[in-house]
């Protein structure tokens, strides 16, 4: 119970059902004060419902939500000391930017002088002073986004909630605003829960990420752990683009060292030596997970640089240069495997390439439970 007093947000065993449909199935999460948590997952995974429940816009079926150690299950949204930024921005269309920002303070009866002071402060922080007299309809997407954040900031809440705030912006602006949100968070230092379906956003912004799927949290961990040690095949496949390659393999031994055997295109097999000992209780058949950037063109130099390089040959079926890197589709038996190469060592179409797979970074999954071994 001592741990509880430390967290800014604690969610215990939270369920949400609409009739017979369970949308959330036993969510457990917590955020330290000042932490930036991202909820990420495909649409329909329940992440937005979870956020709405934290905000108090949706009722709790069972379980607990605590904000700053106060049980808020049945506290109305306005008394939860939260502020929220919506995907649609939800700016009040008939009010000016200034009125949008002061609406909440007016509802709470904050004195006029304090309101003006707060607006001034927030407008300066977000550089929207020049927009205060305008209506939302006269603003660009990025400006609306800023105003929406201003409306949230002015409240000075315990908890910030963001519901896919960047998904209505074009690609360039999205990256800019992402940086800006990160800077803002560093400056303001408020506990933040950020919902997104964009794994890059989650990775870049959050100190910890909760990956959700079908109403439950698949993994809740630091971004780097989620990426390098995904708890299961869903997390592994969802985080990272292009996605992690899943190659069916068989555990075995070669020259007294543990290895996995995979099928190759010439009809034979290749034994890839593992970097770690085989985990206890692992089944004989496993799934080898390899991220595209851990597949290299084999060279002696590479073998010396990396600790555990496994060698395998594969024909190149398709090459997609993107400028900074070149993606290639490689054939492993009846599987397609994507590799991500430096343009200097990029494969050519039709070439049969000798690949070096960095086995120290590879993951093994149990094909039946789909979880990490």
């Amino acid at each position, binding site marked *: 119970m001592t741990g509880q007093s430390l967290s800014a947000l604690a969610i215990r065993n939270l369920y949400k059902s609409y009739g017979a449909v369970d949308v959330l199935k036993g969510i457990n999460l917590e955020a330290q004060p000042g932490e930036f948590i991202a909820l990420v997952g495909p649409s329909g995974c329940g992440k937005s419902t979870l956020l709405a429940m934290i905000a108090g816009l949706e009722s709790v079926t069972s379980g607990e939500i605590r904000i700053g150690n106060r049980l808020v299950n049945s506290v109305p949204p306005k008394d939860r000391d939260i502020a929220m930024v919506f*995907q649609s921005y*939800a700016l009040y269309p008939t009010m000016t930017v200034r009125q949008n920002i002061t609406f909440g303070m007016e*509802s709470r009866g904050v004195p006029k002088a304090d309101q003006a002071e707060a607006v001034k402060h927030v407008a300066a922080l977000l550089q929207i002073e020049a927009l205060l007299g305008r209506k939302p309809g006269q603003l660009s997407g990025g400006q609306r986004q800023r105003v929406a954040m201003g*409306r949230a900031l002015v409240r000075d809440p315990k908890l910030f909630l963001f519901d896919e705030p960047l998904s209505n912006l074009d690609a360039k602006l999205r990256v800019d605003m992402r940086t800006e949100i990160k800077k803002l968070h560093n400056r303001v230092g408020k506990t933040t829960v950020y919902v997104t379906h964009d794994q890059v956003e989650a990775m870049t912004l959050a100190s910890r990420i909760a990956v959700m799927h079908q109403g439950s949290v698949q993994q809740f961990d630091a971004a780097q752990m989620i990426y390098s040690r995904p708890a299961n095949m869903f997390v592994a496949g969802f985080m990272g683009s292009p996605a992690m390659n899943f190659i069916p393999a068989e555990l075995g031994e070669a020259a007294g060292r543990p290895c996995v055997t995979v099928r190759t295109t010439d009809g034979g097999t290749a034994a890839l030596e593992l970097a770690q000992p085989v985990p206890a209780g692992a089944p004989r058949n496993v799934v080898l997970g390899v991220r595209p950037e851990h597949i290299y063109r084999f060279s002696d130099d590479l073998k010396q640089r990396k600790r555990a390089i496994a060698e395998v040959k594969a024909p190149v079926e398709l090459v997609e240069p993107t400028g900074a890197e070149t993606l290639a589709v490689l054939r492993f038996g009846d599987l397609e495997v994507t590799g991500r190469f430096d343009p200097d060592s990029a494969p050519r179409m039709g070439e049969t390439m000798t690949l070096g797979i960095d086995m120290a970074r590879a993951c093994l999954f149990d094909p039946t439970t789909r979880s990490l071994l």
Partner: protein
Amino acid sequence: MAELASTPSIDPEAAAASRRHLWSRFAIYGLLTVFAAIYLVPLLVVVFNSFREQAEIARDGLISLPRTFRLEAWAQAWSTYCIAGTCQGMKQNFVNSLWMTIPATIISTLLGAVNGYVLSKWRFKGSEILFTSMLLGVFMPGQIALMPWAFVLGKLGLTNSTYGLILVHVVQGISFTTLFCRNYYVGIPDDLIKAARIDGAGFWRIFWKIIIPLSPPILIVTVIWQFTGIWNEYLFGVVFTSGEAQPITAALVALTASGTTARSYDVMSAAVLIGALPPLLIYLFGGKYFVRGLTQGAIK
């Protein structure tokens, strides 16, 4: 330069196409003119007759261009013409109609707005069923409700009174105003309501500060619809009121039916126009907002 010189030469296919275009234009405008005339000519006849002398109408017939121009018929219709024994013209009935229509329009529109707000933004278990049953009122002819209303007005002691008619028209109009407002408010994003709730606004503050400021297009439609509908309504007026308490529609019928004297078409024409003036003015000034409001969504 040679190229430039060749451009004005006429392309025979383009010329044929533009001729066809011209003919189809003629056909369309011709047809529209005919239909416009069908609606406008009767109005014109009535307007002319209201300024002609009764003797002239008797001599030249109902449909004829006016030779004289006098306002006497209007004055008579307004204040001195005898309807069913009392000779005070239609002014009291006109005032009755205003006293009935304005409050009934305002009250039914406001109730419709609140209903629409609840049924679109504060849905509860069974709210869709409630809305569907309210919609039945849209399709129910007024005469079905005559007997129940007679009973209710009798119990409330509101027969032969403008208040009674206000009550009837408010209740009869709610299904329409609710339908209009609810369908408009459905287009207002729910996120606005959520944001306002987090901002600490309650049910009424959200209604007055966020919903109502977004509502002018649909409120104009509803007001025009209700005003013209209630003003032109006849059945309830003629059944539940008599004599000086009657609205103008009922009085107009009494006027044409009072067949004791020779028919004075000049006064009748003026009376009909007096009765039609308020809705006409509303259409004239509000018509474009009406069309705009019907076709416009809540927020772009």
